[in-house]
């Protein structure tokens, strides 16, 4: 048989080129995406809500404009999935939590508002760890999501639903959020491209906060080129986010083909330490060789304070979360406990019933870290460590254009394997968290599979607002590797 790929399996830029040339229609593309959801999501369980009817209407609208001769944007007609922590007007948004079951936001997050205006087609809202707290999507209060490469394995997290949806062709691309690696780690574990931009490049307006100073909107795509396109479409200053950086949306595709010749790439020594699986270490070693062969100058780099990363992160993030999640009290929206005796009873039981264990654990840690008498020792100290890590990056970027490491120390682990061991779960993000603490851009790009056939992700980290270099190197690597392996799930379906 010929190409087993359906339209929904193509990268977005190929779909856009086809639509522009009049080959096929947005309607056909969205039908192929919806058919894939129908075919596989019973097993993968990426979605918390599928917006089939709205997607068909929007695709039809795109086709009307296309037939009328309008030039379409690069995102028009492309099936998109959104992590369920991104607010969508009129469409339930739950953060994977019982406390927001049935909550329908009255407004759109900025990222989706921009894509919507450009003709993007939303096929559904994806599963995630509750309030984005987790690394396996098992903390979703609705159901776990399965890795399309191995249905007994986790897709990573917290944006596991978005990663799995893109890996299995249910959406062509997706948005997730990345507070400590929640885009890059699931992208690595699901064999797709995951990009977290510079803090402030993409508006957080409508990103339901977990830890405000660490939260980023990020992208899941099949190719690096698509990451550049999607990021360009959602980036740029937003007056509704005071932490959003000034400036228009960047044109990140412009320098994509410039290659890596002469780029100085620092290989982080921490990336080959204890806890890194041999399969991961081998693929990353090969990736280094490949980049060298492509003309990059390779050197050894280090972030001396990386050892304090998890400690600092697990004080700052819970501290901010304990405040951000205070608003879920049953007064205005979301879950409310039945028959409260009084307001304190209502708030207490609403929160007790509505939040899951991991969320409660972090609220407790964060409340403690901010308490009178403990603030300096915990939150204050963690902020100092954060400053040291920012300086580590500045130091490293004095010698290098990019830093290289594995995205995750392991490939996808078994469902249930780490649910009783929070520390083991937290270690999944040991390589991704530093970029959140420093706000620097980082990408995870597939670099092959391990001995069990599970994908390995290569992480490249760049300077503040130097997305262009990150994307250009990742693109050169991706093109040279030419990795086209598909999850067995899809090969079986096609066969």
């Amino acid at each position, binding site marked *: 048989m010929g190409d087993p790929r359906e339209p929904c399996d193509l990268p977005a830029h190929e779909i856009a080129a086809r639509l522009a040339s009049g080959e096929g229609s947005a309607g056909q593309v969205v039908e192929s995406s919806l058919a894939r959801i129908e075919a596989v999501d019973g097993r993968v369980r990426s979605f918390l809500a599928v917006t089939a009817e709205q997607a068909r209407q929007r695709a039809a609208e795109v086709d009307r404009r296309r037939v009328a001769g309008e030039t379409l944007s690069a995102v028009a007609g492309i099936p998109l999935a959104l992590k369920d*922590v*991104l*607010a969508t007007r009129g469409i339930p*948004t739950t*953060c994977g939590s019982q406390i*927001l079951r049935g*909550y329908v*936001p*009255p*407004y759109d*997050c900025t990222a989706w508002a921009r894509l919507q205006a450009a003709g993007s087609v939303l096929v559904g809202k994806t599963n995630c760890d509750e309030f984005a707290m987790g690394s396996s999507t098992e903390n979703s209060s609705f159901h776990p999501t399965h890795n399309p490469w191995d249905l007994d394995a986790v897709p990573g997290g917290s944006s596991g639903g978005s990663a799995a949806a893109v890996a299995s062709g249910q959406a062509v691309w997706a948005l997730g959020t990345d507070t400590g690696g929640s885009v890059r780690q699931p992208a690595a574990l699901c064999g797709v491209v995951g990009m977290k931009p510079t803090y402030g490049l993409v508006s*957080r*307006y*409508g*990103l*339901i*906060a977990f*830890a*405000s*100073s660490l939260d980023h909107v990020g992208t899941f795509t099949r190719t690096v080129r698509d990451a550049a396109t999607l990021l360009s479409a959602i980036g740029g200053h937003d*007056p*509704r*986010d*005071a*932490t959003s950086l000034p400036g228009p949306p960047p044109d990140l595709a412009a320098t994509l083909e410039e290659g890596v010749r002469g780029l100085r790439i620092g290989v982080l020594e921490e990336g080959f330490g204890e806890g890194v699986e041999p399969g991961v270490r081998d693929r990353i070693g090969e990736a280094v060789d490949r980049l060298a062969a492509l003309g990059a100058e390779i050197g050894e780099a280090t972030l001396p304070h990386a050892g304090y990363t998890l400690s600092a992160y697990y004080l700052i993030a819970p*501290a*901010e979360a*304990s*405040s951000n999640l*205070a*608003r*879920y*009290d049953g*007064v*205005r*929206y979301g879950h409310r406990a039945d028959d409260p005796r009084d*307001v304190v009873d209502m*708030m207490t039981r609403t929160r007790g019933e509505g939040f899951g264990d991991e969320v409660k654990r972090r609220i407790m840690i964060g*409340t403690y870290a*901010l*308490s*009178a008498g403990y*603030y300096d020792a915990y*939150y204050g100290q963690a902020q100092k460590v954060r400053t040291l890590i920012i300086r580590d990056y500045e130091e490293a970027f004095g010698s290098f254009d990019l830093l290289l490491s594995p995205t995750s120390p392991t490939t996808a682990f078994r469902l249930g394997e780490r649910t009783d061991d929070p520390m083991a779960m937290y270690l999944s993000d040991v390589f991704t968290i530093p970029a959140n603490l420093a706000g620097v851009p980082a990408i995870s790009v597939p670099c092959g599979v391990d001995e069990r056939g599970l994908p390995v992700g290569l992480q490249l980290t760049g300077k503040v607002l130097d997305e262009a270099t990150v994307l250009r190197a990742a693109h050169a690597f991706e093109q040279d590797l030419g990795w086209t392996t598909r999850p067995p799930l899809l090969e079986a379906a096609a066969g």
Partner: protein
Amino acid sequence: MASNDAHETVIGLECHVELSTATKMFCGCPNEFGAPPNTHVCEVCLGHPGSLPVPNRKAVEYAIRIGLALGCEIAPRSLFHRKNYFYPDMPKNYQISQYDLPLCVGGHLDVEVDGRTRRIGITRVHLEEDTGKTVHPGTTGRIAEAEYALEDYNRAGVPLVEIVSEPDVRSAEEARAYLTELRATLLALGVSDVRMEEGSLRCDANVSVRSRGAAELGTKVEIKNMNSIRSVERALLFEEERQRRALAEGTPLVQETRHWDEDAGRTLPLRSKEYAFDYRYFPEPDIPPLEPDPAWIEEIRASLPELPAERRARFAEAFDLPPAQVRVLAGSTEWADFFEEAVRLGADPRAAANWMTQDLAGLLNQHRVELSGSKVTPAHLADLVRLVGEGTISSAGGKAALEEAFAKGASVEQIVEERGLRQVSDVAALGAIVDEVLAENPGPAEQFRSGKEGVIGFLVGQVMRRSGGAANPKLAQDLLRERLLTGG
């Protein structure tokens, strides 16, 4: 207040002022009092998941105006913090406020008490957001008896400044003077309508009593729920007395928050449990540090209006008015502008001041209207002063004309004509009336001639009556004297 006894009262005041910006502190909703419940709300001020606060530049400007007017230093870098506590009128269950790095620090306000000027230090002025309002339906309005509570979030997110004084206030009277001066200053700055009854100016007080001359403060009590300057004064008088009595009796005082009961006229302790808060302040990660451009601060400084204290000094100097009148006239922009406009239109300052502080103030008080809400204009006042000064109308006629102008707004000239208030100054016409009065009152005329000059007043009164109030009393008296001394 006993000021020469062994004890001394120490008061610090914390005022919350709602700024009169067009929109709220962190979103674009209208900032407007009195709208139907929950009509001025959006995802930001309702604390919907994912929404973010963006500081209102106008509110920052107003806070800087206040800081500059109070002689504060404007911090080159200040921070918003989150103050965390659960309360249903607070949509996010934290209030965005300022903590250890406020916008304005270290100013002062000069107030006059008993003709002496007292300088009250200002610790800080910071920006924050207001909360919503909780309503407890039911017949009594008491929380404990209500079946449920309703929340109105129109006020949630309204910009507030908190102005904290140093513990420099020494009496309830000084507290009143401070609040009066602060209110006048804020009005002059145009940053708030400062209506205590609508809650746009709210005040809490910290009070303690210590041995005179002691370096350490006594046990501090915070008083809340005072809804007017008058109630602040009453509450402080009560609390001061309560604490002094306790000290005299040797009863230990506890550090606590007490509630002013306006009807009962006393302060009552609140359950201390309600105040066992740990607010877990931390820097607001959604808002970058506030770093106002120095050029902008200077622009704001240059645009500051004349403040009440400056105006008082100028009025006293320029118009030679007694202090009591200066206080009234210079006390508000409204009165000062009215007065100065009348003077500019030619009114004699002292006469204009008398008319304003006595007759006009009386009318306003009687009809319970503000000067700006009355029909009287500076032109009315200028005409009035001129016509009385020229003798065209009597001062009684002037009063009548002012009342008429107050009620109808017609010009003074027109009122004088319509109501025939013009004084009879025609010697022939008045002479005839004088002759009649003398003919009818031979007794008093005789008494005058025999040296009892005082009866001239009675005779003038008779002339006034017969003329229907239109006679020029000065001329009437002159004519009476002339006839009594030369004739008969």
